[in-house]
């Protein structure tokens, strides 16, 4: 009986190994199953999902106008101190002082892409961009100013 069991053991073991070998041989011969993405080469065709959270940007229109009122809602919502709003006072044509942003400083290196600033913004001034290649040579380049040089607030945004 021992001998029979012994031989049976050897055969079941060999069979289980053969099943595994057949599976790898299948993939060895079926190259259409390959799933490698050749990343830098397919950059042109690579399209990320619309909702992908890559970095915070502030859209500007053709007249170099943005929608940010400088209310600091995003700054307060951020868990990591990523956003810093620097405000200044503009003088309106009527001679009144009006608060506006001077700089909206964004620290990409601190950002966790949690989307809280976007949801907090009352005037939809900022949104998430679908970029993901964030490597730079110097850490200081991560600190970005989101509003363009000389930009001003769009008419009618309060």
């Amino acid at each position, binding site marked *: 009986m021992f001998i029979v069991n012994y031989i049976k053991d050897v055969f*079941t*073991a060999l069979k*289980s*190994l053969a*099943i*595994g070998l*057949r*599976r*790898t041989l299948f*993939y060895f011969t079926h190259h259409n199953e390959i*799933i490698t993405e050749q990343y830098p080469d397919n950059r042109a065709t690579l399209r*990320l*999902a*619309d*909702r*992908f*959270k890559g970095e915070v940007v502030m859209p500007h229109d053709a007249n170099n106008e943005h929608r940010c009122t400088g209310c600091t809602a995003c700054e307060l*919502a*951020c*868990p990591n101190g990523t956003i810093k709003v620097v405000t200044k006072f503009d003088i309106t044509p009527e001679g009144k002082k009006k608060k506006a942003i001077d700089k909206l400083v964004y620290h990409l290196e601190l950002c*966790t*892409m*949690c*989307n*809280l600033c976007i*949801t907090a913004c009352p005037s939809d001034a900022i949104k*998430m961009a679908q970029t993901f290649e964030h490597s730079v040579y110097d850490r200081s380049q991560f600190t970005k100013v989101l509003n363009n040089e000389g930009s001003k607030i769009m008419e009618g945004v309060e």
Partner: protein
Amino acid sequence: MVEELGSNTEGDLIINVGPQHPATHGVLHLVITLNGETIKKVEPHLGYIHRSIEKMCESLTYRQFIYVTSRMDYLSSHINNHACALIVEKGMQIEVPPRAQVIRVLMDELTRIASHELWWGAMAMDLGAFTPFFHAFREREAINEIMEETCGARLTMNYMVPGGVLEDLHPDFQRKVKEFITLYKRKIAEYDDMVTGNIIFQNRMKGVGVISAADAISYGCSGPTLRGCGVSCDIRKIYPYELYDKIEFDEVLETAGDSFARYMVRIREMNQSIRIIEQLIDNIPEGDVQAKTKAVLKLPKGEFYQRVETARGEFGIFIVSEGGTNPYRIKFRSPGFSNLSALDHMARGSKIGDLVAMMGTLDLVIPDIDR
């Protein structure tokens, strides 16, 4: 180090496994005492990725602290976020819309499958079979793409908010999930061919790292580690949250308590998750995905505890609130921490090769342990 361990005798070999070691999947540091190839003692040294998330959360608001928990158990970040959302909703009595509830459960189960897929590949790789690792990533990639489309990120999704979910589902979501289910069902048989049925694998796993049910309970193990001993501990079943009391699924139990039992629990759990997804995917009710909440969330004074079932076991959040916008004290009960404490008990008397198999089946995620 040698003096500290105390109980050594002449001729013992003390080896530092980690913090940089292929089998620890991160920065876990185990000091093991060996007698030849036999393990006499395993002592974990933690804290290499300790960020004191509990202290950080004390200065964050109830909206903000959710996103920190994604960084703990990064493989089931969705489920961690879910626990946070649930505890805020419980404290403030926010009613979550039915559509959001279904979406949450769907996302949880997808996350569970993704986590188990990665575990399966990494576990096979620990045992020396490299090929399954890549095959597991094929299925996991499909889930990641679904996550990316709907949640906007692949790993730390940040999709749960108090009162619902961040955005509605992507229009392609249902189609993609169904595609994934077909892919999964086609490929799951191959897992048996390559790993589960393999005689070498079975010999490596069976009777290795045995822990009795009483010991596992005493060590506070949870999730597949405890269910592998035959103890029912699925939070989804015994303390149901969200929709889980209305969904049909089986709690997976194995009785052997060894590495193979834990392995089989996870493999069968994936099938149960697929079953849950199949039930819900065509029955997503229409409606809002987010309840109306106040701009500033404040939990009433008191203590709150919420437990959920992550891919690794029972994850608990304990919040002490003083009534302000920030938690006064927050404690995360992570499944990995308690599971790891049982490693020494399991490993004594087995070989170094077995240690790898045990660590694999405990499914350790180091940030989850260190927090």
